[in-house]
């Protein structure tokens, strides 16, 4: 099954005067998994629902495989959808749920439904009712049901948000595996940045109804296009610096820029905690304020003059950093973004 291309063209939508989408444009390649990531209210779910046909659009177009389907009702769009909660029909077994779409189209349901259940790893529970299944199992069945009809596009509206942490991680890898195997173009909406980075081919970070950046996960994380992206995806330190040609001088280190910038010379650089090294040094300019042990990593908050810097350190280093230890703060020469500079 090969996917189709999806094109959202300048979608605008307001609810009672409040704009939810403000000119969203997006092109998805066939077979790609795009994650729409953003805080609540950013319009990601609205965009998904407009694509599904469950929401009208005030202006703009929706094209699937080159065809304009903006005016097509939801039940003729050939898309599979998985919801955050209440996905399954409670009066049908898992198998009957999966067969539902097929029976609507009067297609032979038995084999394909069983195959789908096996694909999502839940064939042992085919005859169970939704209330007899755990949250994770229900979402698997919902996924099977959506894929059973061989949709052109697969839509997932925060499918993992209602699940326990461990189940969430397990299931998101499963979803990725299945999507790669089946090859359907997929849109995955989430507010969890780790989830988005883990499974997507490209991540679309949204804010206030617009796309801030659409790029591969590594790009979004290492070369954020704006301060909002840098802040929303992962942690960022806001450190004062001086613009110096094509680099910025922060805490005595020259750091390259993600993109060329004008203005300044005083700017704020966004530095990731893992790019900061903290070394015990009796002559250092920094002083440890607090430490937090997080298991695989640890965080240290250091005061350098008036500035607070959060650094990520290993467990061994943590042992050397009691409160009030004098330290040296080293910044690794990783490209940084500047606050107040957004993607062009």
């Amino acid at each position: 099954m090969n996917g189709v291309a999806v094109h959202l063209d300048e979608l605008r939508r307001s609810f009672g005067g409040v704009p939810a989408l403000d000119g969203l444009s997006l092109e998805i390649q066939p077979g790609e998994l795009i994650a729409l990531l953003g805080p609540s209210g950013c319009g990601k779910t609205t965009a998904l629902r407009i694509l599904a046909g469950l929401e009208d659009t005030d202006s703009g177009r929706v094209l699937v495989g080159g065809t304009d389907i903006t005016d097509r009702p939801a039940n003729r769009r050939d898309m599979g959808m998985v919801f955050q909660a209440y996905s399954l029909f409670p009066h049908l077994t898992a198998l009957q749920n999966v067969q539902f779409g097929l029976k609507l189209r009067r297609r032979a349901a038995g084999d394909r439904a069983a195959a789908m259940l096996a694909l999502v790893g839940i064939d042992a529970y085919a005859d169970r009712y939704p209330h007899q299944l755990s949250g994770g199992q229900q979402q698997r069945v919902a996924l099977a049901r959506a894929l059973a009809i061989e949709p052109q596009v697969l839509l997932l509206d925060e499918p993992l948000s209602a699940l326990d942490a461990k189940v969430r991680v397990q299931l998101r890898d499963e979803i990725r595996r299945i999507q790669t195997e089946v090859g359907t173009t997929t849109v995955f909406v989430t507010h969890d940045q780790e989830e988005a980075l883990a499974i997507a081919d490209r991540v679309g970070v949204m804010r206030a109804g617009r796309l801030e950046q659409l790029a591969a996960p590594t790009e979004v994380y290492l070369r954020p296009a704006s301060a909002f992206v840098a802040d929303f995806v992962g942690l960022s330190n806001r450190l004062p610096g001086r613009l110096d040609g094509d680099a910025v001088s922060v805490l005595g280190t020259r750091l390259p820029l993600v993109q060329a910038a004008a203005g300044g010379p005083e700017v704020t650089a966004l530095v990731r905690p893992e790019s900061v090294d903290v070394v015990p040094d009796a002559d250092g300019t920094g002083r440890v304020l607090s430490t937090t042990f997080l298991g695989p990593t640890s965080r240290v908050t250091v005061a350098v003059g008036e500035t607070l810097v959060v650094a990520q350190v290993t467990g061994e280093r943590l042992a050397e950093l009691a409160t009030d230890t004098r330290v040296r703060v080293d910044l690794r020469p990783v490209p940084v973004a500047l606050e107040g500079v957004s993607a062009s």
Partner: protein
Amino acid sequence: MAAATESPDLLAPAPRVRAPRRLTLGRVGSLLGTVPFFAYVVTFLVIPTLVVVIGAFTEDGRFTMANVAALGDSYILQAYGRSVMLSAVTAIIGAIIGAVLAYALVTSRPGGPLRRIVTAASGVLAQFGGVTLAFAFLATLGLTGFVTVFLRDHLGLDLYANGVWLFELPGLVLVYTYFQVPLMVIVFLPALDGIRPQWREATESLGGSTWQYWTRVAGPLLAPAFVGSTLLLFANAFSAYATAAALVSQGNPIVPLQIRSALTSEVVLGRQNLGNAMALGMVVVVAVVMALYALLQKRTARWLG
């Protein structure tokens, strides 16, 4: 009189709780605290019930099946038949109209003013007392009622050209429906609220039409609640007394009125306990219906709770 239920899950089973097992002094003391309640209930509920049950099988102080057998007499069987028919007809009419009204209501904004007003009004109308309701209909459709006069004066229509049906079974059907419909709205609305929008959206995204949604998803999901609510309406009409007592002065077409005559009129020789037998028969019918209702409620609660 029609008993209004405030919510449909009056008969939902209580959640299971662990009970302390040893009979310690403290436990006996705790039990003592419930004595007033149980004593009262025994005196005014259990004993009357036993009186009815035992009395149905007693004659002159001896056990007999004669009273219960007498229930098979044609005039009593006809009364039961009419009671059942009246209850069934008003239950079904009330259920259908009430369900349509409830559906209209559920499409409005939850918590909005329309919903609150209609729900409150339904609560009042479902409670609408037997005598006051009968008099309301007398003022509307009685011989000098507003509508009767209006139809006669403006449309030349004489409602009662073929007899005064308001005081007979057809009249009861109309009047009973008046409190059955609001009761259905109250009892069925929570089930409609339990229908999640995601199910409709899932059906649409899977390619289903509105018809397919109603016949394959919403219909089956609401069926137990609908049938259960209809049963509740049936029991409600079957038990009703005051409305009929106020409207019907000639004859005793339905069982509650038969019981009235057994209690108030000169007792037919040898049949003093016939009233008890008829009452027992009523209890059996209502109990069976309510038990079925409770079973259907469990299913509804699981799907739409």
